[in-house]
């Protein structure tokens, strides 16, 4: 019998989808594989490729087997195709087909829509690895370096997951799309990645943590809605990816939290009471809280753009088709078709922000973005609890969703982080108060010096409270290859 829980390591591609008996797809993937390995090898600096990194690999997709920790050289990481176990008699959870058996094959009428969604999701995965490729060189500790690489190899695996769906279910054009995922490149002039935020640089570790906190959280919400898809293989793929995505959320939240903590501690030690005495705080070799807030403003607003227009026909069609659901669709209590429901959507009316009710079906993006805002607020609350515990008078805040936007209703206006609409001239004169400047970036960059001794941390970030896999504080998370 086909073993669909435990991972098959017989083929070069570990999988729990019975690849060894699916010769066509196996062949297609094996053909794609060298290109992927080349992409990976060209990307990550050589010394890290040769290093032994304490990574987790899934040996099965049930809760007990999916986090097996050991030292691995990254190019030897077993990127595989892992789908969450099939739920018996799963039904399409939403839209006009709600209640019908979930599709095990792509329904012809939604083929183009599904392919597009999978390609967009797939495009973000390698993009973030590209954006983060240089960070290893300035890692503030071996612990952080290990976390970076864990995020990177799992983003790589998520690319595999999407490529598998393309190869398995979309024939020749799926193969073409899979090749294009390796052809496009973050920040490239001729073939950039598809979404804006994935062409921005990730120049320093604060940016990395903000990116994993805010931008990967958009990824999480997109995966959540695809996990509700009526196309079962996509749903199962995304459900397993979400388990891994939680680690990326963890890296972001604790990364920012540890920077905030170190700053507050350093201020206390030096007797600095005013968090806005930026130069005094920077002289301590830590990142001042107002600059951290500016970085938050930037990454949050870029991430909100990823949700698209508040009112969207595409999103309505995808929901109605049952191709994409809402966050936690199966736990919601309504008709799952949104026949008569309305949803409050922000709009600009005569220079004022108002919320007005529109058909809920057209407001799917807005709703997911609201869920995202709630989810993102949790970590900010916990960072503030840390700041308060140390006794520094400062609070981080999420800016108004209309601040610094390029997509949706707010793209046409300028707004302060508090949500006051301002003129273009005022925006130009004040934007450096709210968004990181080149000088801010240069300062952060000046702190980015590697700290690679086991158990040691750069001076601007606090050690974690718990080790990965409960390892002791001086555990050597990366055995560096120093040739």
């Amino acid at each position: 019998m086909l073993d669909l829980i435990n991972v098959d390591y017989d083929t070069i591609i570990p999988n729990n989808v019975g690849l060894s008996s699916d010769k066509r797809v196996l062949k297609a993937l094996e053909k794609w594989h060298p290109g992927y390995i080349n992409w990976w090898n060209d990307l990550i600096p050589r010394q890290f490729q040769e290093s032994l990194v304490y990574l987790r690999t899934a040996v099965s997709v049930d809760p007990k087997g999916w986090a097996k920790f050991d030292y691995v050289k990254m190019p030897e990481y077993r990127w595989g195709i892992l789908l969450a176990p099939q739920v018996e008699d799963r039904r399409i959870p939403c839209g006009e087909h709600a209640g019908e058996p979930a599709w095990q094959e792509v329904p012809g009428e939604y083929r183009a829509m599904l392919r597009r969604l999978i390609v967009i999701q797939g495009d973000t995965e390698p993009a973030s690895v590209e954006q983060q490729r240089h960070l290893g060189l300035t890692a503030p500790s071996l612990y952080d370096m290990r976390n970076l690489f864990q995020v990177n190899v799992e983003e790589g695996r998520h690319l595999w997951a999407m490529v598998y769906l393309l190869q398995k279910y979309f024939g020749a054009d799926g193969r073409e799309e899979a090749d294009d995922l390796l052809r496009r490149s973050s920040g490239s002039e001729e073939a950039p990645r598809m979404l804006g935020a994935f062409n921005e640089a990730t120049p320093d570790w604060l940016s990395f943590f903000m990116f994993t906190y805010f931008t990967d959280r958009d990824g999480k919400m997109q995966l959540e809605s695809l996990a509700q898809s009526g196309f079962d293989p996509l749903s199962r793929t995304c459900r397993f990816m979400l388990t891994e995505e939680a680690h990326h959320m963890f890296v972001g939240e604790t990364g920012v939290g540890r920077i905030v903590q170190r700053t507050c501690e350093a201020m206390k030690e030096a007797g600095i009471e005013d968090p806005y005495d930026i130069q005094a705080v920077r002289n301590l070799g830590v990142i001042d809280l107002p600059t951290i807030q500016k970085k938050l403003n930037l990454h949050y607003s870029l991430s909100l753009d990823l949700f698209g227009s508040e009112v969207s026909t595409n999103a309505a069609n995808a929901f109605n088709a049952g191709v994409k659901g809402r966050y936690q669709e199966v736990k919601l209590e309504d008709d799952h078709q949104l026949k008569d429901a309305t949803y409050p959507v922000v709009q600009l009316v005569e220079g004022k922000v108002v919320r007005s009710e529109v058909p809920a079906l057209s407001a799917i993006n807005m709703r997911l973005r609201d869920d995202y805002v709630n989810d993102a607020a949790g970590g900010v609350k916990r960072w503030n609890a840390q700041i308060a515990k140390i006794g520094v008078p400062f609070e981080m805040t999420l800016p108004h969703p209309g601040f610094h936007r390029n997509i949706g209703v707010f793209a046409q206006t300028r707004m302060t982080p508090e949500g006051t609409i301002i003129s273009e001239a005022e925006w130009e004169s004040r934007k450096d108060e709210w968004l990181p400047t080149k000088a801010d970036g240069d300062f952060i960059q000046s702190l980015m010096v590697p700290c690679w001794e086991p158990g040691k941390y750069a001076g601007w970030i606090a050690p974690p409270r718990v080790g990965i896999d409960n390892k002791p504080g001086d555990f050597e998370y990366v055995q560096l290859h120093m040739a």
Partner: protein
Amino acid sequence: MNAPVKQHLIDPEICIRCHTCEEACPIGAITHDDNNVVVDASSCNFCMDCIAPCPTGSIDNWRVVTAPYSVDEQLSWTELPAQEDLAAETAASDTTAEALDDAVAALLAEAHAGAGGAARAPKSAARPTVNLYSSAKPAVATVQGNYRLTSDNADSDVRHIILDLGGQHFPVLEGQSVGIAPPGADANGKPHRMRLYSISSPRDGERPNTNNLSLTVKREEQGVCSNFLCDLERGAKVNLTGPFGSTFLLPENHDARLIMICTGTGSAPFRGFTMRRQRSAPDLTEKMMLFFGARTPESLPYFGPLKKVPENVLAKHFAFSRVTGSTKQYVQDRMRTESDRIADALKDEHTHVYVCGLKAMESGVEEAFRDIARGVGLDWKAVRDQMREEGRYHVETY
């Protein structure tokens, strides 16, 4: 007063509210509000499904409590409460669980009692997994081999039984045990109780990267479980629970010197220790001593394979009590003839001592240690207690 119970808690200061644990829990024992994610003590059955998926480590928190914290209480927390200061006799139960099953925990506590105080794992030991499988939800192993270790004319039948775990995830460390209950019922119609057996293979299997483990089992005349195991044929299925044990473990640190003292099937964990070291640090020499007692060479398990381990890797000292024409010798006698080396090792902070075998061997071994220590001006009890506190003195006897 209620008997103290172990309660599973989530650290709200470390948890990132990703709710992965909640998704993983098969019985809905984990819930959340806007503030916290919490485990309902009245439903949690310690299946441990939530542990591995947690990205933060916040899930792996335990308190021994007289009355469990309610869900509402936990939802209001901003940090974990400290461990209650329970009465001395209950505090000895320690928060590093050897097993979460009371019966198994009691068996292990009894086996470890000879160390004279609460057992602790070596500082550099790998972190063990315990209680992945319970009798309600056992792992099913297939017998891959069942070989007699003692020669045909020996007076005991000790067997090396290899159990294949197929695709099941059953992570073990050398020194851990598994639980086996023979099928069927006793004279009162109750299911047979579970027995613990030390694993005698290293963590990566009999051969590297094989998902199997081996046990060393002696056939006892009236032993229901030992006869069941010793008679198993290749291909037969056995239900396993565990793994159990979180203190009788191998230090990962290669500076650690090991003195291993055993009789009979007490050699099982030391086979695992030796094989692990040979695999993980093949060039390591002069770090392991073995004192092994049996009636005769023919009845000493693994006598043949042991002799093949180079003396500079493992210094072997056999003591035989029934060899015709020779004086009776017990492990403590062999220890005394090596007193200089043992005394030297006792002064070294890297030395770890392990005693494993029948309860009857404890007093003789203790006495030998006391005499050897006294000979170099050391107080054995103080040395032993310090070593035990530092996770360097381990006893497992039955």
